[in-house]
């Protein structure tokens, strides 16, 4: 069997910290990256625009929420609000800052920082307020951000319809498109930008998880009084978690608007989106980066697959209302079932499967 730990000896602490210790895993990851970078961009526009790119966006937001709720234990229902800040921030930066100084990737990251700062402001109450009471702060953020951008039309450039379509020129990064002869507004280019950002930020998150900062976050989650007794600054950890998490959500919002939908629209960032991402987080498994991605794929794809099943097998018996209701029922059941059987979510199920594979054909 290829999938074995034998022969895998750790000779120094660096090796012990590798993300993919097994040779098999390393090979899979490299092949996976090649697939993602070389093959996927050549797939159909439909596939990219309706499946891959949106999953990249919501998956990134899930990773962000994971850092706040999964790692640091700060419950948040304001995810969509922070995504909104990112989307609006990106739009306004691209619109108002001279082209020579601003381009899309840069705007995405900068607006992420805005989102992060907004997160810190709404995270301040977390220093005093604990547990479920903290929901108030993140919900306040969600509603306030929505109201704010709704009330001050300047942010939408006074667009009366309330929705702004993103101009094609926003997609070119300092003429790179012209230079390479590539249509930067095309889906392959959009996809690659989103992919690079998501892979980079996921890698960062994974490192963070295993680092001192990550351990500090988890100690705040598990037992904050003990953490402070050990010298960890609990307020600082909480605020940092808010900053990083909301940064991720902001960037995800920018990706969602710019690289997926192509519109900046408040309707996208309402409270039910925050819930959807929370579902992705819970189903995927709190505290696991790969889990966040698995959860995102599942929650996003399920209604689509279900509709397809309806069209294919039952000749279009499922209308949108039915799909939505059944999806909600499925999410609910999955969340409860996972919490009962496998609190670590899909990530834990996957880890257990891999563990069994390592042992196969022995049971233990």
């Amino acid at each position, binding site marked *: 069997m290829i999938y074995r730990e034998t022969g895998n000896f750790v000779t120094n602490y660096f090796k012990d910290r590798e993300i993919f210790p097994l040779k098999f895993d390393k090979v899979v990851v490299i092949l996976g990256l090649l697939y993602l970078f070389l093959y996927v961009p050549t797939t159909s526009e439909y596939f990219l625009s309706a499946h891959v790119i949106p999953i990249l966006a919501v998956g990134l937001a899930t990773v962000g929420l994971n850092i706040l709720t999964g790692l640091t234990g700060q419950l948040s229902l304001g995810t969509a609000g922070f995504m909104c800040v990112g989307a609006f921030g990106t739009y306004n930066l691209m619109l108002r800052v001279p082209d020579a100084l601003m381009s899309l990737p840069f705007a995405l990251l900068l607006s992420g920082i805005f989102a992060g700062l907004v997160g810190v402001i709404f995270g301040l109450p977390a220093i005093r*307020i604990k547990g479920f009471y903290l929901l108030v702060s993140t919900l306040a953020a969600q*509603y306030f951000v929505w109201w704010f951008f709704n009330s001050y039309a300047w942010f939408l450039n006074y667009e009366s319809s309330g929705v702004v379509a993103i101009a094609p020129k926003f997609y070119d990064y300092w003429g790179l498109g012209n230079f390479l002869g590539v249509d930067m507004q095309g889906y392959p280019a959009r996809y690659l930008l989103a992919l690079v950002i998501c892979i980079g930020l996921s890698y960062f998150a994974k490192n963070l998880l295993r680092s001192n900062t990550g351990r500090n976050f988890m100690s705040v989650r598990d037992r904050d009084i*003990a953490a402070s007794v050990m010298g960890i600054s609990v307020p600082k950890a909480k605020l940092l978690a808010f900053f990083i998490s909301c940064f991720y959500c902001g960037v995800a919002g920018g990706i969602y608007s710019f690289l997926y939908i192509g519109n900046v629209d408040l309707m996208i960032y309402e409270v039910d989106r925050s819930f959807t991402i929370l579902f992705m987080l819970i189903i995927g498994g709190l505290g696991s980066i790969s889990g966040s991605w698995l959860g995102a794929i599942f929650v996003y794809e399920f209604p689509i697959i279900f509709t397809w099943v309806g069209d294919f097998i039952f000749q279009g018996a499922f209308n949108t209302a039915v799909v939505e209701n059944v999806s909600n*029922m499925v999410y*609910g059941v999955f969340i409860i079932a996972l919490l*009962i059987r496998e609190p670590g979510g899909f990530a834990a199920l996957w880890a257990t499967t891999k563990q069994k594979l390592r042992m196969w054909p022995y049971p233990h």
Partner: protein
Amino acid sequence: MDWVYLIEVLVGGLMSGVMYSLVAIGFVLIYKSSGIFNFAQGTMLLFASLTFVKMTENGIDFWTSLFIAAGIMVIFGVVTERYVIRPLANQDLLALFMATVGLATFQEGFSQFIWDSDVHGLQMSKFLDIGLLDPAPIFMSDHVPWLDILIPKFDIFASLVAGSLIVVLAFFFQKTKTGLSLRAVSDDHMAAMAVGIPLQTVWAVVWAVTGIIALVAGLLWAERVSVSFTLIEAVMKALPVILIGGLTSIPGAIVGGLVIGVGEKLGEIYLADVFGGQGIELWFAYFMALMFLVFRPQGMFGEKLIERV
């Protein structure tokens, strides 16, 4: 300063506060007896009232429908306790909360799947021949000459219902043996089991009762905003209420409701100009709760969270 107008606004706020507190009471009941933050409270409202409305629309009379709906809520409560709460009893509260989020999602889908997603109006005065349910408002000026405001009779009815509910529940918790068991369970359910309190029965009772409260609250809310999934938004508004009042206090839920109800109305009228936009009530309630909690992290009447090391 138009005093009469101010009073009208205040009264309106109080009434809407009562509505919020009806939802909040259900939350508090469950939290008080199990420490679980029941996110499914709103969807329970929806499910209960939707069930009731579908029955009455199909010709079943008021009291039978009410009875059946209540019965269904009781069954739902027992089933929830058995299949959702009990298996998770040894996990931490965050997990239980997430389970209620899952429950809420499931219930939202299920209610609309079983019945439908349409909006259903509800007018209880069609069923009950009680003067108070008559949609016509009371002209307060008939009773107090200078008080030229209108108070919908329905709001008075709702307040009475809420008030009686509080009294009954408060009595229940303080004076009865079951109430005492519930309080013991919420403090420390392992210890409660150790002294022989039948945990599962107690929880089943709590969830069933909460279901019935959800039915009552749902019907009252439905009268105002009709039965549809937007009813769930009532929950979102009730959250700041509970959090201000303190998660463990039933009177707190009432007071919190009144504070939020009045505060919202006042904010909308007087502050909307300052902030240049309507829809301020969306986040104003939350901001009030936030300010409150920063100074009193356990809410007005909530039990102080004491952590021992």
